[in-house]
């Protein structure tokens, strides 16, 4: 899921990566809307708000919204900077490192929110910025390693793709096209996981408040560990196969 890059990825890899990261993005977005009244996994709305605030002449608010958009941009930049520089030496580490940064950000938000949050505007603005940075990191990672076929923090493009696919599936030749079927599976799994993550976060937040961010961290840790496990299994199988195929063994 994390160790493969671009075109070497299978549909199953993309579904796993897409669904799990979309689940965590759904959790983060719904929680931020409940607590902070701001979206943190998508920036389209923030661009519209930025334009509105500039038109109204509210320069302080414009600056805040611009900073949030910029944090999402920096998140995407950071994850891809890591991938570009370390992908050849250790793809697994290069793909896990952004997720570890994301965990640190969300863990910090959860911990600060649970123990210290005084509900001041400044705290709110900073925490939203940190969450947008974390979501930028995740989006940059998933988009980059899936050859731009998986974007999990926002669903605008995905809903567009689903609409296009639904129209194409009115023709039989497209319904039998394996590439399009795979695309549909990926998209539907991302939508379902995002929605499920949002619903779960909404319900869990009522019980545990800010600790819901720890639950998101657990989901991301699961992605990293699952990949580590799969990597070990693959290595073991490869070793076994090499042993069987080696001239010494066949004799």
């Amino acid at each position, binding site marked *: 899921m994390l160790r493969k890059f671009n075109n070497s990825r299978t549909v199953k890899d993309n579904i796993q990566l897409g669904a799990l990261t979309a689940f965590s993005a759904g959790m983060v977005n719904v929680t931020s809307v409940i607590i902070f009244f701001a979206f943190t996994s998508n920036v389209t709305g923030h661009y519209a708000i930025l334009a509105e605030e500039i038109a109204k002449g509210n320069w*302080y*608010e414009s600056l*805040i919204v611009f*900073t949030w958009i*910029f944090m999402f941009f920096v998140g995407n930049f950071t994850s891809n900077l890591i991938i570009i520089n370390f992908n050849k030496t250790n793809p697994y580490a290069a793909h896990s490192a952004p997720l570890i940064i994301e965990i640190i950000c969300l863990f910090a938000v959860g911990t600060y929110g649970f123990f210290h949050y005084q509900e*001041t505007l400044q705290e709110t603005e900073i925490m939203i910025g940190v969450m947008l940075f974390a979501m930028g990191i995740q989006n940059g990672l998933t988009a980059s390693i899936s050859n731009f076929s998986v974007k999990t923090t926002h669903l605008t493009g995905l809903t567009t793709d689903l609409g296009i696919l639904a129209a194409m599936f009115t023709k039989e030749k497209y319904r039998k096209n394996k590439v399009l079927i795979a695309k549909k599976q990926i998209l539907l799994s991302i939508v379902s996981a995002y929605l499920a993550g949002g619903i779960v976060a909404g319900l869990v937040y009522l019980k545990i408040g800010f600790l819901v961010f720890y639950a998101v961290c657990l989901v991301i840790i699961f992605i990293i560990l699952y990949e580590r496990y799969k990597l070990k299994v693959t290595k073991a199988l490869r070793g076994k196969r090499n042993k069987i195929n080696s001239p010494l063994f066949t004799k």
Partner: protein
Amino acid sequence: MENKIPLIYFLSILTLIILATVILNNNSSPNEELLGKWEEVSWHYEKAPQRTGKEISSDQLTEITKNLIIHEAEIWEFKPNGNAILYNKDSAEKLTWTLKGRGHILKLNHKNSSEYYQLYHVSEDKLVVHFHTELQAKGIVKMTFQKKI
């Protein structure tokens, strides 16, 4: 060109930081703009439940605000320490306030309950607050205040 990239990135970031500093120094945050006493001057529907008109009668007003913290409040006072006082004809109610989002959501806390209002416009002398009402029919109520000196 490759050697110039770090310089271009650095200068871009520096420009943004300078711009941000200038904006922060020349504009007050919504927190500061809200401080002081605000006197209610009008109640209207921003989005009326029916097409018949945007006026809110005093009976409707009493009904809409019946279970709200702001019920019958005529003057709202916001203090810098997060406390607020809502004055009506004969009494005053103490509560706390905070802003959410980008400073566009006003949260009022009273005893164990909280209410949220959207700050549509805040300037030196005018405050416009919106809130959704689902009483009888859905609509958005617009409250306009003037700064009390």
